[in-house]
């Protein structure tokens, strides 16, 4: 089995990452009743002997001694990382995995990417190398960051290009939190577009998450749990926003939103960690969902968001789960895939669900979902027998869909509004190494990306004739 390393950069990246580690421990504790350090745990954790100062590691099969996360934490401010080190997860990280500075990036991509990127290049590569060496078969780097600020966005994308440089064979899956339209960081459009250029170039695939969608999901659940209908209590642990049962005690602000991101990562890796009748390894994600190298932006959709406490699970509820995965309420970006074009779609199912359930639902939903002409049956499915905590089954849908085009176009608009007036540009151009060409290249890259999606959209209306076959002479 393989290992993955999580690289969390910036405030958002580290807060979301922190929730990931908490929920991962919770999930494994739930499944792993005998306290043995198994292959599944090995994929995200090392098992060390804390008595020895050199932290010698134990191999798979023995008892759990001391679990250490396979992670690298980077932040140019100390606040968030310090909080982690003082909190209940402190034992899970050791100081060699952390890289911090004090002054932050001032919400400036150039500061994150150029100033800190250059200053800390060696140290970053060093820590990444160390994490990689501790794996006997490293398959994937998961980068978590936000797009709107300075560190996550700027330094995060610098780390991404370092990952490609130093570890070209290892898959790079990036979870990028995009800011909402009314973000309080004025320059977030600059930061996001500059970062996107790097994502397009260096990531194998990007899981798009929008802040606003996370907020909406959190609110939806709050409304649900404060409902007055009797018997409609939400089952403990089951809300996708809940951290109940984890190590951390009272929830902090943003915890609920970050738990959603954490669950996304847990579900994506479930079929690689646990067994099932149709496994899906991490290298299969890009293989199936990325038909053209630059079009690797994926729309995630998680269901269920919560489970009601008292209700049994009739088949109808199972089918409802599939319907929900294709409803806007469950998506992690504000987009409309049903009215755009699917290039490919993956369904990652967990729990007691059989292949016939999946087939029945694909047949049922297929007519209402427009797929590109050359990929009419573009479904990738996986069945993992272990459900997530608090549920009997769950579904993560990952779609490569042209509905991201409007999202990118809005971003472009916000960028252009500022750039036209050269607003705040001097903050960036003052940074050593930064030039105006970075801006023009970045917007050109975004333009051509939008153009590629537009091209595909245009094929939707047209009836594309079948490709010519070969006629064989007798």
């Amino acid at each position, binding site marked *: *089995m*393989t290992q993955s390393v999580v690289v969390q950069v910036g405030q958002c990246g580290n807060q979301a990452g922190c929730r990931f580690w908490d929920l991962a421990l919770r999930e494994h504790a739930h499944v792993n009743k005998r306290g043995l350090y198994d*292959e599944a745990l090995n994929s995200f954790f090392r098992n060390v002997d804390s008595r020895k100062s050199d932290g010698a590691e134990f191999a798979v099969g023995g008892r759990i001694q001391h679990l250490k996360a396979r992670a690298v934490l980077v932040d140019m401010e100390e606040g968030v990382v310090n909080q982690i080190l003082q909190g209940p997860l402190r034992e899970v990280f050791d100081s060699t995995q952390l890289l911090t500075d004090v002054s932050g990036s001032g919400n400036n991509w150039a500061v994150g990417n150029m100033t800190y990127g250059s200053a800390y290049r060696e140290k970053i590569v060093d820590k990444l190398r160390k994490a990689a060496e501790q794996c*006997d*078969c490293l*398959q994937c780097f998961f980068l978590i960051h936000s797009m709107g600020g300075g560190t996550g966005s700027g330094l995060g994308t610098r780390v991404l290009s370092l990952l490609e440089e130093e570890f070209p064979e290892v898959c790079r899956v990036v979870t990028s939190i995009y800011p909402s339209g009314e973000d309080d960081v004025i320059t977030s459009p600059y930061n996001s577009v500059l970062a996107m250029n790097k994502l397009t170039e260096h990531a194998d695939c990007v899981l798009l998450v929008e802040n606003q969608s996370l907020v909406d999901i959190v609110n939806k659940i709050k409304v649900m749990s404060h409902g007055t209908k009797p018997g409609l209590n939400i089952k403990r642990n089951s809300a996708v926003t809940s951290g109940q049962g984890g190590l951390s005690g009272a929830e902090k602000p943003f915890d609920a939103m970050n738990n959603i991101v954490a669950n996304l990562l847990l579900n994506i890796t479930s079929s690689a960690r646990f*067994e099932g*009748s*149709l*496994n899906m*390894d991490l*290298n*299969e994600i*890009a*293989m*199936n*969902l*990325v*038909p*053209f*190298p630059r079009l690797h932006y994926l729309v995630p959709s998680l269901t269920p968001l919560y489970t009601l406490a008292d209700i049994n699970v009739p088949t109808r509820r199972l089918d409802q789960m599939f319907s929900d995965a294709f409803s806007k309420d469950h998506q992690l970006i504000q987009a409309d895939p049903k009215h755009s074009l699917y*290039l*490919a779609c993956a369904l990652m199912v967990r729990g007691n669900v*059989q*292949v*016939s*359930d999946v*087939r029945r639902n*694909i*047949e049922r939903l*297929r007519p209402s979902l427009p797929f590109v*002409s*050359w*990929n*009419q*049956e*573009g*479904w*990738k*499915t996986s*069945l993992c027998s272990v459900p997530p905590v608090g549920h009997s089954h769950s579904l993560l849908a990952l779609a490569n869909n042209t509905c991201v085009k409007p999202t990118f176009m809005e971003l472009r608009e916000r960028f252009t509004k500022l750039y036209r007036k050269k607003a705040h540009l001097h903050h960036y151009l003052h940074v050593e190494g930064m030039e105006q060409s970075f801006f023009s290249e970045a917007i050109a890259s975004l333009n051509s990306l939008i153009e590629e999606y537009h091209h595909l959209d245009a094929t939707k209306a047209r009836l594309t004739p*079948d*490709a*010519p*076959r*070969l006629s*064989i002479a*007798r």
Partner: protein
Amino acid sequence: MSVVTVQLGQCGNQVGQELFDIICSDAQEGQRKTYSAASCERFFHQTAQGDLVARALLVDMEPKVINRSMSMAAKSGRWSYGASSHFSQKQGSGNNWANGYCVHGPCHRDAVEELVRREVERCDRLAGLIAMMSVAGGTGSGVGTYVTQCLRDIYPSSFILNHLTWPYGTGEVIVQNYNSVLTLAHLYQLSDAILVHENDTVHRICSRLLNIKHISFSDVNRVIAHQLGSILQPALTADSHGAYSRNPLGIDWQVRPPADSGRSRSLTGGSFNTSLANLLILRGKDVYSAETGGIDDPALYTSWLPSKEAFSLWKSPVPFNKYEKSATLVSNSQALLRPLDDMVGKVWNMFASRAYVHQYIKFGISEEDFLDSFTSLEQVISSYSQLC
């Protein structure tokens, strides 16, 4: 005479485990000494303690499925896999045929060949080799094709049967058509017989004939294993002179049309499925008095092959897998023509837009290789559709 089985990838290993399970329980059923002895000799070797160990290797590029198959076998209490008869790596083939064929295959060639050799040496006489795999994924398809090539190199005159599981038409893997076409085109040059099960068809059997409500892959795999078992278990053939035929794979499946077979026919010719060869296997009660109906009717067969040569009948008075009477038909005919044609049609469509091609090129095959495979299959489709 013994058969050595190589199980490749998740599907190959899952189906293989069910196959050995059915064969073992069928062999150990009731009072049928000769049949049991023949069956056990064919598929298992016996340890000093009398335990049955499958003549099989389990190959996969990641360990989870092999672990599960081996432990399920051991749990049965009746048979097991050889403790060291497996090979796995840590990281799978990523649903990528080129990764399986160009990278993993050559990389692990020596280790796998060594395991095959060891297993073959344990056989008194080798009847042939069976490779079990799916065509949709990366390991079964890619590594499976490479391993078949190796088997052909090491045992040039042995009979090699490839058992292939075709995926559901509506996707289990998005690039399944690429993987399937690349596999089939290569296997055509290497294999003596390609035996196909389609998930869609087996699924229909489960839902309509067996009335299973929530069909799982276990259900599907068990049906496949049952059908395979009924072909491979001992039977009396026309020339076995009353003994259970020593070579279960010993009919000539390959037929070549004569050079000038005149007329042509369209695919939608509106006539019944034309066969090249059919094998009917009857097991259980009343086999000796059974009528085979019109299966040997010349009208079913291509005109340039007399039905006497095209039709074979095997019998076994021993009931198989608890069915009092059962019949199995293995057919080399136009039955697979439509699914094959659909598959190739879809593959052209996808290739025309070059979707996913970069993923394969990365691992060492070229656009030429794709086109060669398509051409090769178009020829197969043409040959079969012109049967009359």
